[in-house]
């Protein structure tokens, strides 16, 4: 039972992060390798806002989330906008460079020590007992809930929202979409901001649960296989991919070797690339878009 809960929590973490990869890839065909760092930035933003709005944890969290939204737009406007139409390798490397930059800045501002945003906000983190004798911490439960809410909102938005439809159109055929009067730059900026928003949510909740160090981007990178296993351009896929990767990781750690934790997602990734490179639910695109 505990094992099952662990799988669900880890899958929620991966899914919440992976939807950021999927959003950006689906809309603009760019792989954002700075996603882990952007996520970490969101989590560290809580530390900043916590001192700003001391005594109002809800305000502080909301401010951090809004801040991450703004960061996403800024990243697109000042950086990725210049890379539209460039070689995809150049775009990927720009995100990698951005990740390095963010990591350096975070280390400069907040140092490499472990931080506890939950304490800064004076929020408790009690263990909850679930029926069946398993335990789950409050913030892990919040993460699972947030994940479901985020996916629900995203499905609704992409399916019925005006801008959601524009995003799908831009992802399907940018040229045609632009011809029909869709402002591609706005759509891309929206995708980036939504992606950093969801990433920051994941980062903040993870930091509230178990503290925060500058090694958080590793988790972001481990969530990438989840996105790819499900199909890089499919949100449903990201959910299933996260579940598969998380299950494989938790079970292998439990039954085989705890040291495997860092490689399991990548083993799953390679297996998937060999069998079905475009993922479980992804569209089978021509793989030489780069």
């Amino acid at each position: 039972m505990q094992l099952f809960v662990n799988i669900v929590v880890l899958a929620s973490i991966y899914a919440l992060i992976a939807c950021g990869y999927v959003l950006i890839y689906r809309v603009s065909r760019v792989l954002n390798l700075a996603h882990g760092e952007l996520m970490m930035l969101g989590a560290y933003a809580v530390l900043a806002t916590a001192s700003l709005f001391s005594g109002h944890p809800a305000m502080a969290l909301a401010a951090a989330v809004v801040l991450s939204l703004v960061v996403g737009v800024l990243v697109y406007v000042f950086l990725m906008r210049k890379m539209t139409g460039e070689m995809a390798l150049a775009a990927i490397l720009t995100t990698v460079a951005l990740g390095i930059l963010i990591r350096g800045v975070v280390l400069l501002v907040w140092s490499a020590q472990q931080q506890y945003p939950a304490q800064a906000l004076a929020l408790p983190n009690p263990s909850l007992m679930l029926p069946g004798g398993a335990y789950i911490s409050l913030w892990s439960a919040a993460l699972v809930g947030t994940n479901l809410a985020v996916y629900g909102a995203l499905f609704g938005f992409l399916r019925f929202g005006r801008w959601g439809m524009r995003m799908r159109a831009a992802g399907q055929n940018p040229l045609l979409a632009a011809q029909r009067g869709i402002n591609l730059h706005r759509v891309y900026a929206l995708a980036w901001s939504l992606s950093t928003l969801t990433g920051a949510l994941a980062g903040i909740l993870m930091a509230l649960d178990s503290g925060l160090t500058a090694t958080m981007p590793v988790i972001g990178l481990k969530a990438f296989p989840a996105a790819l296993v499900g199909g890089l351009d499919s949100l449903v896929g990201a959910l299933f991919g996260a579940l598969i990767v998380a299950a494989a990781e938790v079970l292998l750690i439990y039954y085989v070797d705890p040291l495997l934790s860092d490689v399991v997602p990548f083993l799953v990734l390679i297996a998937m690339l060999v069998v079905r490179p475009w993922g479980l639910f992804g569209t089978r695109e021509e793989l030489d878009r780069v």
Partner: protein
Amino acid sequence: MFRPLPRASGYFRTDYADEIALIQTRGERVTLIVFALALVALPFMASPFLLDLACQVLLASIGALSLMLLTGYAGQISLGHAGLIAAGAFTTGILSREINAPFWVTLPASALTGIVLGLIFGLPSLRLRGLYLAVSTLALHFIVIYLGGEYETKRGFSTGITVEKPRIAGIALNDGRIWYFILLAFAVGSLLICINLLRSRSGRAWRAIHAKETVAEALGIGVAAYKLLAFVISSAMTCVAGCLFAYYRGFVSIEAFDLFLSIQYVAMIIIGGMGSLLGALLGAAFVTVFPYVIENLLKLLPNAKSLAGDIFAVNYASFGVVMILFLILEPLGLVGIWRRMQNYFLLWPFKKKPLAGARK
């Protein structure tokens, strides 16, 4: 026959030997000799610190050359370069530690590891292209690092493996100058290998695959075989660099080969300039020297003492900034700047090259 200054006015060869010669003009020959003399003289002039820096540049340039061969010419993106260097270093470390193997065993063994790993890294490239290939090499990087870490913990070397300096005729090679010349020889050797590979059949095949795979196949190039060949040669060279790294440092630990190292190597070929061996060398020098420059710049600031703890972070951040600047402002890299300068002087007093085909 050596002719002076051919570039501006065009240069016509009269026999096949001219065409094949590596050094084609007197100017090139003179600069090369001067440069070689400078390289030979360097260890006798430089301080130990500079000597170490030069050795690091030479080591990095072997890795950068091999990555340039793979990514810059054959067009196969790899984000797992650090994994290959780690594989070479660990092969050396493990062999010399477990069975006390001398360097003339570990060096070929490392190259062999490279060949095998090159085949493994290259297999996904037969099916995947571009982004997906990059991701699969990234995954392989993590797997190699995991295996190395596993070995370290299982054998109880959790802080790393110490490697003794190789001995030739009973004398341990622990003088910095000797190492400088060894590394120089290897670097020059790999440069020559790269030059000759690139101007022969394989180089032409790689360029064709890079430009358009379908067309390359239609021209009768065995795409799969040449892709694998690119991976194998590149990773064998990289693993040799890893072996040299292990001996030069005398110490191998898995922490040294994180993803950041892979990114640094990719940065070298981007900053240097894609599709140019000169670019690989320039990029290797730039990326290796860069942190020391930043460190010294920081020391110039007024309150240098208080910043000492932040050097690492500043390095990280400024490396990111420099990489972004190059990607956005100068996609052709240092080589692009160098060529522009050359053209400026060659064309003076004019500014622009005549358009190709504009002649009536």
